[in-house]
């Protein structure tokens, strides 16, 4: 998929810095990309700055951290100069985020249905009965067979896969234009992972959303996305079309691909990543 017209999201030279007792820690160091209505994967290991990039776009960076960017814009609206109230209006309505583990990211003392209705009522003038109907329809869209029953359940009463579907329903019910999914299936069993990805894939395609898929799993991301950004130590080291993953040039990307044990390949010992200091420059 190529970019047509104005990008949905523009990120230029994004930096996120955390002040600590021992000096500043730069989690994100000059990340730039533009996103259209496409699926973009951001891959990296822990500490690479992939999640902080997503959080900065969403506006969820902790208050003590410093964010700077030459440009951080959603459409033509400048996210950095925006008032907090405007940002709140955008968050959940136009930009939504799916987090890793439904056990921790759903409200444990509210039923799933009430949480979805709450999202709707925050962003739209809608009656309670209309909101409930929309919530039920959305639960059905994420392939929950018995939406009425799940609507009135608490998060601890459902499985991980069901919880993650409920979270997807909650995030998509207001019809966002941009969805950020931060490790959306890492907490799930492998067979459930595919079901959830399948649902996500269909909804993103049907609604023409832009998607940023953040994950540590290079193969998974490349099978799901159109384009992949590889991050290391807060910077983008490589960007490539997902289909051309085998042609990756950067030694880090190649190393990551290489060090995975696979069925049928007999490599003992496994090749390990030889981290070069210049990658982090």
């Amino acid at each position, binding site marked *: 998929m190529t970019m047509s017209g104005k990008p949905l999201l523009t990120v230029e030279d994004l930096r996120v810095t955390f002040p600590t007792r021992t000096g500043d820690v730069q989690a994100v160091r000059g990340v730039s990309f533009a996103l259209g209505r496409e699926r973009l994967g951001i891959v990296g290991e822990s500490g690479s700055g992939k999640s902080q990039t997503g959080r900065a776009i969403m506006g969820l960076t902790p208050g003590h951290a410093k964010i700077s960017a030459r440009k951080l814009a959603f459409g033509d609206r400048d996210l950095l100069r925006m008032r907090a109230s405007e940002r709140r209006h955008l968050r959940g309505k136009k930009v939504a985020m799916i987090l890793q583990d439904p056990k921790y990211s759903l409200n444990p003392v509210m039923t799933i249905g009430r949480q979805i209705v709450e999202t709707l009522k925050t962003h739209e003038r809608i009656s309670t009965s209309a909101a409930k109907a929309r919530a039920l329809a959305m639960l059905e869209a994420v392939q929950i067979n018995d939406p009425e029953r799940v609507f009135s359940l608490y998060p601890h009463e459902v499985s991980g896969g069901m919880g993650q579907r409920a979270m997807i329903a909650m995030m998509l019910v207001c019809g966002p234009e941009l969805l950020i999914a931060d490790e959306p299936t890492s907490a799930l069993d492998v067979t459930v992972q595919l079901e959830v990805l399948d649902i996500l894939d269909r909804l993103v395609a049907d609604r023409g959303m832009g998607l940023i898929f953040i994950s540590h799993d290079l193969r998974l991301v490349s099978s799901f996305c159109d384009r992949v950004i590889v991050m290391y130590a807060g910077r983008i080291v490589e960007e490539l079309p997902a289909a051309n993953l085998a042609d990756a040039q950067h030694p880090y990307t190649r190393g990551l691909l290489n*060090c995975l*044990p696979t069925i049928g390949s007999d490599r003992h010992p*496994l090749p390990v990543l030889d981290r070069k200091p210049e990658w982090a420059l």
Partner: protein
Amino acid sequence: MTSALSIRDMVVIYDEFTALDHVSFDIGAGESFGIVGESGSGKSTLLRAVSGLASFDQGTLTVNGHSYSGRKRDKEFYRTVQMVFQDPYGSLHPRQTVDRLLLEPLLIHGFTDIETRINRALDEVGLGSGFRFRYSHQLSGGQRQRIAIARALILEPKILLLDEPTSALDASIQAEILNLLEQARRDRNLTFVMVSHDLGVISHMCERLAVMKNGKVVETVPRKALENREFSADYTRQLLVASEGFRRG
């Protein structure tokens, strides 16, 4: 092949729930045996029941010719069987230095050459004596898992139980830890029982594997069967398809 570890009809019941339902294995000395399954399949319960962290309600466990039943294990058992856990952040005492962590098993089992053993254990996992007086919060995830392996190996066990030893680690660190485990197994002729949800890891590390579901063993197959897709259970095929990643269909 003499079996190092033999499990016969092991049953674990929590209240009404049967977590393990008549599970039987024979694992040969020096063999590496894998167990795959999803959460709730009973794979961790099995490892905990074998290690003595949990008791089992029925069945027998034979280790190197000694039979054990239920909960009671002697010191000899714990010297023979050691375990490495999934989460290196949760399995090391936060207020003990590496030195203290490695000292404890040596004291319990009455070893005297403590200095040399601790230094050798640290060298063996590739950390060196510079790490001896650090706390676990001063270590990275991979380094912590190396300490956990050193703690298991320091008693010179014969059998190592590995419960998802790399699933909390980054892919590049996973490769290092898997190589370390293979090296240790070669050097000491260890028997491995390794639990993982990752078929790639299991087929890399193990010669034979069992697929578990709902507390039962669905089937036991050699590694070759995964490569050639020679297995009978539908569930094994599902796991294999899932491990190959997402396909737009």
